[in-house]
């Protein structure tokens, strides 16, 4: 029973359309995540899909039925919506609020049945809100209220569950629990979820719909749709991707793009590791500098990020000492570069040659030493050799504290 959204248009005022032409499909028993910048119509789109707002054009179909033709009560049995936030000045009991979720199944004056009570208790349990059942709805914290709202939606026993930023008020544990709950619910439900946290979207959503300015830019399986490139396009930030903890789903790190760009064909080689250099690599690349990187061990976060933007990298196998061949490569790259950026990392015998080679260039080339904490606190596993080298950089190279300062120096 997929949800099909075809060409919907909607505007709160006639002059300004919020949704211009949205098309997408939500597959059965999947979590479909809707992502996009603020104010691009995600919430409005959900209100249209849920049948609260009527589109000025286009159709929304649940399982081939146009929802415009379904009476509200029947619609309430098919889908439940968890709004961003609800408000009431009255101290309504949480339990009875969740019981409201049963109202599509009850006649006007009919009392709550035993079955209703069972479903409500079950829903409260699932949303981890059972402990609030005797409290009042207007006394709950944001996170507690969000869980209670989810319980009410579950009590509706919908085939489609629609949530508008369901994790926005939750602490990290409850965020993960909720996303797990949603994953489990896909056995019997289809879920549509507006979500801001891209890494959560990537970890939990099966499908992704990317919206912007009232249009759908892209949709499909999250593995195919979510990429650093796509996110840079939509959100206007620098995105770096790296494999997530499960090894399958991508995770992303973001930073603002550099304010200035350079026209000069400058070449910079970045020596880093442990993910310390990825922001610099991304920013320089985005600012128009020709960046090379290395030596990096495969699997290092810097390596993954650099790889995702397709620059030249000197790489070594994971966890191994850099070989002579790689050191020769490194010297070649440094010779070609106008500037060498050295980022402070922990140093062992494996990566020591990175810094030995860089030190050779101190008198010949512009070298920028990036040392995030003024006092060097990096681990030296080389019996003092690394510290010696770092002191050398500190005194002879130009020193920068962060990515911004590096850009300042270079551009």
């Amino acid at each position, binding site marked *: 029973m997929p949800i099909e959204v075809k060409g919907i248009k909607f505007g709160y005022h006639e002059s300004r359309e919020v949704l211009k032409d949205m098309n997408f499909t939500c597959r059965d028993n999947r979590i479909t995540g809707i992502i996009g910048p603020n104010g691009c119509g995600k919430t409005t789109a959900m209100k249209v899909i849920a049948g609260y707002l009527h589109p000025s054009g286009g159709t929304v179909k649940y399982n081939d039925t146009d929802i415009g033709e379904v009476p509200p009560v029947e619609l309430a049995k098919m889908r439940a919506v968890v709004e961003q936030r609800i408000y009431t000045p009255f*101290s309504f009991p949480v339990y009875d609020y969740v*019981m*409201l979720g049963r109202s599509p199944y009850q006649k006007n004056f009919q009392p709550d049945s035993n079955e209703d009570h069972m479903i409500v208790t079950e829903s409260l349990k699932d949303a981890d809100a059972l402990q609030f059942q005797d409290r009042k709805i207007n006394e709950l914290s944001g996170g507690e209220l969000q869980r209670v709202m989810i319980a009410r939606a579950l009590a509706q026993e919908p085939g489609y569950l629609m949530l508008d930023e369901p994790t926005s008020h939750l602490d990290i544990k409850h965020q993960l629990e909720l996303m797990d709950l949603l994953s489990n619910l896909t056995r019997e439900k289809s879920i549509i979820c507006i979500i801001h946290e891209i890494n959560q979207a990537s970890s939990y959503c099966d499908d992704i719909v990317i919206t912007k300015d009232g249009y759908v830019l892209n949709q499909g399986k999250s593995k195919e749709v979510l990429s650093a490139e796509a996110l840079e396009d939509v959100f206007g930030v620098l995105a770096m991707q790296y494999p997530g903890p499960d090894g399958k789903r991508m995770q992303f790190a973001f930073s603002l793009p550099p304010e200035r760009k350079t026209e000069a064909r400058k070449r910079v080689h970045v020596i880093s590791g442990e993910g310390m250099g990825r922001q610099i690599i991304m920013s320089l690349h985005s600012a128009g500098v020709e960046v090379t990187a290395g030596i990096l061990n495969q699997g290092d976060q810097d390596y993954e990020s650099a790889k995702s933007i397709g620059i030249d990298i000197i790489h070594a196998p994971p966890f191994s000492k850099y070989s002579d061949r790689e050191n020769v490569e490194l010297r070649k790259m440094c010779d070609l570069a106008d500037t060498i950026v050295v980022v402070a990392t922990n140093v062992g015998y494996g990566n020591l040659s990175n810094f030995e080679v860089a030190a050779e260039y101190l008198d010949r080339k512009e070298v920028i030493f990036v040392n995030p904490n003024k006092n060097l606190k990096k681990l030296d596993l080389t019996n003092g050799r690394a510290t010696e080298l770092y002191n050398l950089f500190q005194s002879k190279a130009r020193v920068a504290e962060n990515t911004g300062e590096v850009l300042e120096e270079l551009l």
Partner: protein
Amino acid sequence: MYKRRDTVIISAGLFLLTLIVMLFSVGMGESNIGAEKVIAILTEPFTHQAQFWTDGEATIIRGIRLPRIILGALVGICLAISGAALQSLFRNPMADPFILGISNGAALGATIVFVYGAAWALSLYTLPILSFIFGIITIFLVYNVGKIGNRVPVNTLLLSGIAISAFLSAINSFMMFTGGQNFEQIMFWMMGGLSGRGWNYIWIILPFALIGVISMITMGRSMNALMFGEESAQYLGIEVEKQKKILLVLTALLTSAAVAVSGIIGFVGLIIPHIVRLLVGPDHRILIPVSVFAGAIFLVLADTFARVVMSPAELPLGILTAMCGAPFFLYLLRSKRGEL
């Protein structure tokens, strides 16, 4: 947790209490008549017992006090549940038919009848029907003026109510002023009270009260859903626009009927649901039935007090309720940060 059984038990208890209060009030007055005598007089048509009271006493009880007290109970019911319904609809505990101007709207309709009365004699129901028409126009006007986007915030709602109410009240005064001969009669009626109302007034209000009470008791669940906003209610399968209109029409109906028989008695719709909410919570499935009885008891007691306190003179009931209600309203406004 809401239980149907609790509602039934509490309502039954309150029903008995209401009867006791009414009985007690029938006996009270300028000439006190003992409870035993009152019961005997009231049950005489069924028991046919030997008369141990004077004919005068029987007339006072049956012809004057009893209709007045029944009328008071009905007016209390109408005003209390109108208030409760408005508060759920506007999601605002400060809503009340008087504060929102419905009472003044209905009063304007009634004044027209008084001033130009004979012109369209539509029998007994001319008064409530014209009150109703004006009441309903007022509530839709206030609602639409106070509405910002999809919400009806407390400040704009109260302001639009106050402004429209003041405007209507001015027209009302103007009509009374230029209307001439009935000035004092209308003035007294406007102050609100049940003095001298006989059985025919009960027939005016009874159908409205019955329709209102029955409809609202069955609408408890929808009113609960509306408390969380129109969007939420829609997602729960409620036809929001329809329910909203039904509730507004019912409220206007109840208020107008009350105004038609008793003039402007303010603040009952504010005080009663508020107290009931403190006692039994905001669930409309119990709030409405309990407000029915609480409204009846409150108005009967207030009217008895108004009859007795300055005896043989009478305090207009509207003045009394405003004296209690206005400070109460201010207290609510001050403590609005707290929960209701």
